[in-house]
C-alpha cells in the first residue's frame, strides 16, 4: 500500500485570459520520484508553484500529505524546493547562503556542520567559501538543491534541477534524489530531458496546454510512442532500400527532414517492431551488413511528440520559459 504525498483534483489556474492549468488530476505517491514534462506553456511551473504554496488554484482541490492546502504560503515545513531557478544571493558564499536560509528557519544556531554536510552531498564543499556570484549554472543548481534539502523535507519540488549540469553533476544530483526517495521522501520535478526522466522517475506526468495527456509509469509512456522511425546504415544502401520495399508493413520515410537526411547512406523506415525484425532478417539473408540501427527519435520522446501533438521540427522539448 502506497500512501499519497500529493493528491490534486480538478486543479484549474488562469492568469488573465491564459489558462495555465485546466482541471488537472494528479496523484503522487510517497517515496516516489515523479516527473513533470510538457512543452512550453504546458503548466508545469504553475503546478509546481501550487505544490510549493506560491499561489492558490482558482478551482479544484490540492492535498499534500493528506492536508488540504486552502491558502497560499500555508504549506508545511515538510515541503521545499524551487521554481524558476534556485534563488541564491550572489554576494553571499555558498556556505553563507545555506547558513542564512537555515537561520531564517531557526535551524542555524550551532548547526554549521549540517550546512557543510549538505554542501558535501551536492559536491560543493570545496567551494563553500566562494561567493555564489562566480558559480556556473550547474553549481547554482546543485546549491539550490542543497538549500531545498535544509530541514530534510518530505516533499521536494524542483523545477528543472538538472538544468545546466554537466554529466558528473547530473549523476550527483540523480544520486541525491534517488537516495532521498529511498529514504522515503517524495520528489516532484520537471525536466525537458526525457532521458533524465526515464533514468530517474518512477512515474511521469505529461502536460499539454494545461491538461494531463499522460500520467503513469515511464515504461507505459514508451508504449504510447506508436510506430517509430528507424535509421539504418548498411553496407549496401541501394540493396537495403530494395529489401525494405519488399518488407510487409514497412515504409520508407522520404522527403522528411530528419538527422538521417544529412546522410545518403542511411535508410529511414517506419513500421511496427515485428516488421523491423523482418527487415533485419531479410538484410542478413541478402548478405547486407547492418552497421547502425536505431530509432530516429527515442521512444519516450516520440511518445511525447505523439501525445502533445508537437511537430518533429520543433521536437526539442525545451525548458519551459513561461509559467
Amino acid at each position, binding site marked *: 500500500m502506497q500512501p499519497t504525498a500529493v493528491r490534486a483534483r480538478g486543479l484549474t489556474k488562469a492568469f488573465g485570459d491564459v489558462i495555465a492549468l485546466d482541471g488537472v488530476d494528479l*496523484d503522487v*505517491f510517497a517515496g516516489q520520484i515523479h516527473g513533470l514534462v510538457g512543452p512550453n506553456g504546458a503548466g508545469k511551473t504553475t503546478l509546481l508553484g501550487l505544490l510549493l504554496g*506560491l499561489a492558490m488554484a482558482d478551482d479544484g482541490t490540492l492535498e499534500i500529505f493528506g492536508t488540504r492546502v486552502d491558502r497560499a504560503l500555508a504549506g508545511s*515545513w515538510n515541503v*521545499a524546493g524551487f521554481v524558476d531557478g534556485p534563488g541564491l544571493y550572489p554576494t553571499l558564499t555558498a556556505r*553563507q547562503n545555506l547558513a542564512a536560509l537555515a537561520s531564517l528557519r*531557526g535551524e542555524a544556531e550551532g548547526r554549521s556542520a549540517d550546512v557543510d554536510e549538505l554542501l558535501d552531498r551536492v559536491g560543493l564543499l570545496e567551494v563553500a567559501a566562494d561567493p555564489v556570484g562566480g558559480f556556473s549554472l550547474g553549481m547554482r543548481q546543485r546549491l539550490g538543491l542543497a538549500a531545498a534539502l535544509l530541514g530534510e523535507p518530505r516533499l521536494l519540488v524542483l523545477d528543472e534541477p538538472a538544468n545546466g549540469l554537466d554529466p558528473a553533476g547530473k549523476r550527483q544530483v540523480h544520486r541525491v534524489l534517488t537516495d532521498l526517495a529511498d529514504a522515503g521522501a517524495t520528489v516532484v520535478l520537471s525536466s525537458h530531458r526525457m532521458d533524465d526522466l526515464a533514468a530517474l522517475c518512477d512515474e511521469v506526468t505529461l502536460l499539454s496546454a494545461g491538461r494531463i495527456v499522460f500520467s503513469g509509469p515511464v515504461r507505459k509512456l514508451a508504449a504510447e510512442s506508436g510506430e517509430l522511425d528507424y535509421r539504418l546504415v548498411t553496407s549496401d544502401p541501394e540493396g537495403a532500400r530494395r529489401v525494405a520495399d519488399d518488407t510487409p508493413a514497412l515504409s520508407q520515410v522520404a522527403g522528411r527532414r530528419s538527422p538521417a537526411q544529412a546522410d545518403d547512406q542511411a535508410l529511414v523506415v517506419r513500421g511496427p517492431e515485428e516488421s523491423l525484425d523482418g527487415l533485419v532478417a531479410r538484410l542478413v539473408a541478402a548478405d547486407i551488413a547492418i552497421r547502425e540501427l536505431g530509432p530516429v527519435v527515442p521512444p519516450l520522446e516520440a511518445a511525447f511528440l505523439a501525445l502533445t501533438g508537437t511537430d518533429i521540427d520543433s521536437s526539442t522539448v525545451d525548458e519551459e520559459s513561461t509559467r
Partner: protein
Amino acid sequence: MTVSTVEAPVQRRPVALRRGYRFELTKLVSQWRLRLVFLACLLAPAVYTAVISRQTSLPADALYGRWMNQSGWAGSLVILVFMGTLVLPLLTCVVAGDVFAVEDRLGTWRHLLVAVRSPRRIFLSKALAALTVTMALLAALVVSSIAGGLISIGSHPLPGLDGHVMESGELARTVLLAWLSIVPPTLAFSAVGLLGSVALGRSPLGLLMPIVLALVLEGVQLMPVPVALRVALPMNAFITYRGLLTTPGQLGSLWVGLVVSLTWAALATFLAYRLFMRRDFTDLAYDGSGRRFVVAGLVPLAALVAVTTAAVAAATGATGSGIERSKLEAALATSFSHLYVLQTEELHRPAVTEAQLQATARCDKAGDRVVDTGPGADWRCVVTWTLPGATATGTAIYQLDVAADGRYVADGDGPKEVNGFFQIHTSRGDAPNPLWQFDGFVDLLDNPSKGTQ
C-alpha cells in the same frame, strides 16, 4: 494500486520577524557596494573637514563655511548643509531604493516567499533592515564630520545664527540635535525609496526615486513659492535645524518639518506596503508598473502636499514668501548686537552688552518702487546703535542676500572701522572680523501680525 494518506504534517507558520530581519540585514551587509558607501561615509566627512579647515579659501557659500578654520564644530555643520541637498536622498536610493528591486533583479522572490511564507513579514523585514543600514550610514557621517573637525581644529566657540556666542557644551548639544533633526526627512526619503523599489521593480527609475524627488523638491524650493507650501515639503525639513542655532530657538519650521516628514514616511511606507501585498508573485513577467506607481503612489503623496500646505497655512496664518522687512530688521539688529559685543571683546574695548547697544535696523529692498518683501540680493539695511555714555549714534550699512529659505548673508558696506575689513587685530593675532560678513536667519513661519514666534 491502493491509495491512502500519511499522517498530516504540522502546518507551517511564517518565519519570525526577528529572523527575517537578520536575513535581510545579512544580505544588505554582504553587498560590496554598501560596504564601500559605509566606508565613504566614515572617511569622507572627516577628510573633507580636516583638509578644508586648513585652507585659506573656505566654502563661504555654505552655512558656517567661513568658520571652518575657527571651530571644529563648523565642519560638521557644513557637512550637514550638503546632506539635505543630495547626499541623504542618494544614500536612501542605494539602500531603500534597492531593497525590493534586488529580488526582482536576482529572480529570488519565489524562493524568498517559500522560505518566509509571509509577504507581510518580508516587507517589514526589508523595511527595518533598510532603515537600520540607513541609520548606520547617517551615524557614520555624524561621527566622522564631528571627529574630523574636532581633531583638526579643536572645540572652539562659534556664533549662532543670531550672533550669540555658542560655547563647546551648547555647540555639542546643538550640533547633535541638528543631526537628529534630519532623521525624520531621511525616513521620508527612505519610505519613498521603498515605494519606488516596490512599484517599479528593476526599473532604474524605481532605484532613483528618492533622488529624483529630491531634485524636483530642490527646484521647487528655489522658486519663490508660498511659505506654507515650502515648509510642507519634506525637503525643507533638512534645513529647519537652523532654528536651533538661535536663542531662543526658532522652532516653528522645525516642528512643522518633523510632522511633515513623519507623515510622508508613514504614508509612503503604507503605500509601498499596500502595493507589495497586492503584487502577484507568480507573474514572472512583472517588471513594475509605472501606472500603478502614479495612481497608488504619486497621487496620494501629491494630495498629502496639498493637505499639509493647507494645514500649515491655516495653523500659522503664514502667507507670501515669509520674508518680510520687519522680520529681517529684527533679525539683523539682534545678530549685529551679539556680534558687536563679540568684536568689542576681541578688541579689548570697554565692555558693552547687547541691551546697552539698543541696536535697530532699517531695511529696504531695491529702492522705493519695490515692495519690501521676499528673497533677493537687493536688500540694503542700516543698523543704528548707541554706546553707553556716548551722545552720538553709530551706523553701519549692510547689503543682504536673502535666500528663499530664510537664510541671509549680511555683507558689511561700511564704515570700515566696524565692518570694512575681513580681519581684526587681536592680542592673539589676526582673527576674522565677526561684523564684516555674517550669516543670519529669519523664521519663515514667524508671523508678527499674529504675535507668534
